[in-house]
């Protein structure tokens, strides 16, 4: 398979936190949701991909090339959107173009101005004068104006209203129509991903819990509810993020175990939010 991004056995350790054996691959032409609770290691992983952090072990390949050795070549084709801008507050949107344009061979001024116009962004406005939602759109405009093949988005929707989030999803849908492109979308606002992601990578506490096709993940785990009378110790070990209350329990379970469960258990289709929360609870209680 032709992967646009590949991480293999990546380790990065700090005094109080470590990323361990991070391995996943994003095939060309798809959107991968990179999900996990706050502090799970999403931003650290993204920073490793961008060579902002020095990894302790493992390999990272972007467009099939090592991300450090071919850094300049690779970054020419990567668009990055972070949770906040990284431009001088006093720069106008015109200044930003003047500054960034010479760094990219494929910069398209027409496209940049067209995006700004579509997003109702005034080129004469300064970065500090625009709202958070507009800043996100500005970063998207920049990322798309140099014909990036891979978009890396780190929590781009946090703090955005539903309208702005929806607009972003539409832009990404359009972007991914080209099967040579790819999107890595890190977020903890999972409903956005339910609409757009083809692949999901779940990270928690510095470890990858799942990486694969989104629908497989949603089929793999189901939510179960039942009375306390059926909840024995052996059964409990099979439940991920089991929550007991006065009248019963609920939790997440691997669907392959379903035939072995008592008949009076109610099952429901899971969603990404539930999966993250349950895995998080399960990890914490372990």
């Amino acid at each position, binding site marked *: 398979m032709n992967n646009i991004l590949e991480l293999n056995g990546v380790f990065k350790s700090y005094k109080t936190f470590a990323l361990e054996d991070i391995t996943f691959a994003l095939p060309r032409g798809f959107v991968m949701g990179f999900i996990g609770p706050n502090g799970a290691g999403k931003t650290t992983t993204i*920073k490793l991909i*961008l*060579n*902002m*952090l*020095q990894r302790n072990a493992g390999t990272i390949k972007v467009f099939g090339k090592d991300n450090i050795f071919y*850094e*300049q*070549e690779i*970054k*020419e084709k*990567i668009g*990055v959107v*972070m949770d*906040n*801008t*990284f*431009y*001088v*507050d*006093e*720069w106008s949107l015109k*200044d930003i173009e*003047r*500054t*960034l344009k*010479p*760094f*990219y061979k494929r910069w398209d001024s027409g496209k940049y101005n067209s995006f700004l116009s579509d997003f109702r962004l005034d080129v004469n406005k300064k970065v500090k004068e625009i709202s958070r939602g507009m800043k996100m759109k500005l970063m998207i405009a920049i990322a798309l104006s140099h014909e990036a093949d891979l978009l890396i988005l780190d929590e781009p929707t946090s703090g955005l209203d539903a309208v702005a989030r929806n607009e972003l999803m539409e832009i990404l849908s359009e972007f991914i129509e080209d099967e040579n492109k790819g999107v890595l979308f890190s977020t903890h606002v999972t409903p956005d991903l339910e609409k757009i992601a083809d692949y999901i990578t779940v990270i928690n506490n510095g470890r990858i819990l799942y990486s694969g096709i989104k629908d497989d993940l949603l089929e793999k785990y189901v939510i179960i509810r039942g009375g306390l009378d059926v909840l024995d110790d052996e059964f409990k070990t099979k439940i991920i993020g089991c929550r007991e209350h006065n009248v019963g329990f609920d939790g997440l379970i691997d669907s392959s175990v379903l035939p072995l469960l008592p008949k009076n258990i109610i099952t429901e289709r899971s969603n990404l939010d539930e999966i993250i929360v349950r895995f998080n609870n399960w990890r914490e209680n372990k």
Partner: protein
Amino acid sequence: MKKTLLFVGMELRSLKPYRVSILILIVLATGLGFFFGSSHALSSYLMMVLILLMTYPFSISEKNRLDTLYSTLSINRKTVVRGHYSFALMAEAVFIVLAILFSWIMSLFIGAKFDIMETLFSISLLSGVFSLLVAIQFPIYFKYDYSKAKILAFIPLFIVFLGIIQFPLLTELLGIKFPWTDISFVTSDIPAYIFFAPFIFGLVLLWLSCVLSCRLYAKRDI
């Protein structure tokens, strides 16, 4: 090389918000030089402005997360470091031109003495001091963030200025007569090529410092 120059351009643009305060500082330094009627004093004040200016890119970079921006551009970390040093060299060149120009203007308007050899010697010395300070300060900024580094980075600056202030007192205590307002005794006694030794020495220091900064910045987590 092209990307390093592009980086310098970006650095200059990042100073845009501070252009008025930089201009005010230059005017103040020049005004003080004129007030004291000494081209050496004028060059010293301009150098102080220059040293202050060298911290701006690091401070702006931290405030606006420009290290993150650099990480998204198609440049490597060596380019970032070389860009910062090139900016310093460029600023130093501007300082030299301004110092010579203002000294000459001073001689025309207030009749201050203007001896090109004296002026060059004084500028060469100041450039050497500037390069020494930058050579010490920049690796500290590349190793740490601006906020963490600034106290550490200001120590050499503080020592140099303390030394400059204390040196006349020290010579007085030791009974050595040092003509501070007239350095012609130096320029008349030493061969011309020695004039430029501090400047050349400064350039060598900057190069060594740049090599060190490249290594430090390459290892830094952003």
